[in-house]
């Protein structure tokens, strides 16, 4: 039993796909943010896999993953701040209105 590049990348693709499904179907803003975090994780798996299999001597992919994590944290913070603002001022988290697939 061997596990190589393609296995990791496929796992990342599946995770990304699951996140995509969630973004398209969730109606709660927080729920969508959680699904987006799944997608970011898929991206990071990709980066770290490539860092190991393509450039083990340089680790650029790992550096990239660090930045992605930090920025994901910043985005989540701002997003939740807005959610809280909306909840406090308007008593609502847009369960009905946050709908990505609304064209």
């Amino acid at each position, binding site marked *: 039993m061997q596990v190589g590049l393609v296995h990791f990348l496929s796992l990342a693709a599946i995770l990304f796909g699951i996140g*995509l499904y969630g973004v398209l179907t969730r109606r709660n803003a927080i729920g969508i943010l959680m699904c987006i975090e799944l997608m970011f994780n898929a991206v990071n798996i990709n980066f770290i896999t490539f860092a190991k299999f393509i450039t083990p001597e340089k680790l650029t992919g790992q550096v990239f993953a660090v930045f992605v994590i930090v920025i994901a944290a910043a985005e989540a913070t701002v997003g939740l701040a807005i959610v809280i603002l909306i909840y406090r001022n308007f008593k609502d988290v847009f369960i009905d209105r946050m709908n990505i697939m609304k064209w």
Partner: protein
Amino acid sequence: MLEGSTAIAFYIIAFVVILSAIAVVTLKNIFHAALFLVLTLFAVAALYILLSAEFLAAVQVLIYVGAISILMIFAVMLTAQLTNYNIKQTNEQSLPALLISICFVAVTIFAIATNHKLGGFPLAESTEVAGSNTAHLGQLLMRDFILPFEVVSVLLLAALIGAIVIAKRDK
């Protein structure tokens, strides 16, 4: 290539990642979904260890599990009275969304596999990560990637200011 017990570990972790991720996107109770998100993130951290990225695994646990998910759970609980079980958490487009996602995954995996077969990924001869990878990473961040590092610090400052202004209760 990973072989033997690490390969088995990969499959177990992959199984956990996929199942818990599916739980995150499908569970009706948003609080439970958030808990499964934590599980997914832990599993991904384990995956990082398999990929000899110990530092990243630690970062994953500290920032993702420790900060982001907790923040999410906090927000979920704060708005809990609105997120009761009677409200539907998904829209009516789950079927097209499912199709889109499955197509996306299929195409992506096909492209990856084909690309790999045709030699599109310039694989390194050895997958042994050189030296102590945490120290190496630190050097990279502080030397080659100092500019994005500084830009990210500006970004964090902006996000901080913004989050405070937005979430602050005005008189």
